[in-house]
């Protein structure tokens, strides 16, 4: 039984110290914000004015420019969380905990947006807000997973201990999500012969693809910016809680 807790000198260990991390990444915040804003302006302009209406969906097709990026982010964010979970479990990297915790609400947000825009889209196209279509359903399940993780984070009071436990669950979820997607597709084809809309990306004309891609980058940058910001606030929060606990403990050991 030999446990060694001397910090290892790898390159990423210099980011390991929360204070340093904040100090090094704060300068990035403003540029990121600007880039995001510009991308959004361009993307919205292209999407709203430069892209054709759909011959059957009319103007509502423009919802797609919001919907698809969100739908994609809903999965990308989980990937981020899974990687952070690995960082927590394998390398015990302090910032991995923080990023894992920060990402959960963002993921939930984007997933909810995907669902919402999808539902808005569904109204004109299928006549109902909700259809148990395979893709939509698996997105809904994903949302449940995000919410579960958030609830879990809130349930623990010792955030340091919570991180490793939640990391385990996050990874298990990561293993399961493909299975869930597969099973849900199996299920929906089982119950509905033909999916209501068949939207296969590549066949789209460039005039749709371009704005889609711009919006796509805009949302991704939005995520990165928000993630950084959230991590900073989380670090601050932990520092404050630490202080409070010391006070409560009476002795600043």
């Amino acid at each position, binding site marked *: 039984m030999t446990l060694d807790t001397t910090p290892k000198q790898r390159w990423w260990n210099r980011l390991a110290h929360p204070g340093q991390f904040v100090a090094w990444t704060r300068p990035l915040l403003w540029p990121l914000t600007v880039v995001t804003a510009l991308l959004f302006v361009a993307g919205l302009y292209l999407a709203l004015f430069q892209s054709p209406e759909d011959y059957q969906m009319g103007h509502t097709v423009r919802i797609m420019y919001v919907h698809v990026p969100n739908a994609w982010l809903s999965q990308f964010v989980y990937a981020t969380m899974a990687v952070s979970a690995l960082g927590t479990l394998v390398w015990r990297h302090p910032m991995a905990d923080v990023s894992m915790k920060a990402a959960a609400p963002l993921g939930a947000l984007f997933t909810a947006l995907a669902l919402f825009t999808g539902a808005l889209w569904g109204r004109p196209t299928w006549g109902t807000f909700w259809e148990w279509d395979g893709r939509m359903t698996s997105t809904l399940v994903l949302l449940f997973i995000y919410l579960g993780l958030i609830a879990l984070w809130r349930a623990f009071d010792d955030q340091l*201990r919570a991180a490793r436990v939640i990391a*385990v669950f996050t990874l298990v979820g990561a293993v399961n999500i493909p299975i869930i997607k597969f099973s849900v597709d199996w299920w929906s084809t089982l119950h509905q012969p033909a999916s209501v809309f068949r939207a296969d990306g590549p066949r789209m004309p460039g005039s749709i693809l371009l704005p889609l891609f711009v919006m796509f980058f805009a949302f991704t940058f939005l995520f990165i910016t928000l993630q950084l910001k959230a991590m900073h606030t989380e670090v601050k929060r932990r520092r404050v809680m630490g202080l409070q606990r010391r006070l409560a403990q009476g002795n600043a050991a």
Partner: protein
Amino acid sequence: MTAFRALLRRELRLALRGGGDMLTLVLFFVIVGAIVPFAVGPDQELLARIAPGIVWIAAFLAMLLGLDRLFRPDHEDGTMILLRQAELPLSAIVAAKLIVHWLVTALPLIVASPLLAVLLAMEGDALWRTICSLLLGTPALAAFGALGAAVTVSIRRGALISPILLAPLSIPVLIFGTGAVSVGQSGAAMLFLAALSLMAVALAPFAAALAISSAED
């Protein structure tokens, strides 16, 4: 190995001497089945159509009930700390608990499922397929359950959080389980179920052990 057997014996004793635990689960299982006809109305063929789904839902929910018993008592009376000094690894301990958990929660349900089948007007072969699918699927449910219990062991009122975590994970089991009963291609579904259970039972002990050992203080 004798240590493992000792664990099994102890878990079984504790479960069986607890008195009506199994009875509670079975009752819950049956109650759930008995409610549905009142909701749906006495439409036999409709009942028969949704019967597999009801059985699986009932099984899933019933298995949630036993979960809190899995690790919390040992966590609270300090047994868990001592078990980590035992001759066998934590994952083996979790595995033993998992086995017993399946024996005392899933097995009674499977035994009771014919009763439900009668209530839900299932005909013979559907019943058989139900039992098979339960046999194949419940291990996965138990494994996921163990994971959820391990993750929430150090949380008071974790009883309400673990279902939230478990439900999404269990969806494939439910889907394939009902698929295995109802539809034509039940064979494929059975295979999927078996695969799921194998994977879950193989991985869950390690994941759960990891979660416990990092939650324990």
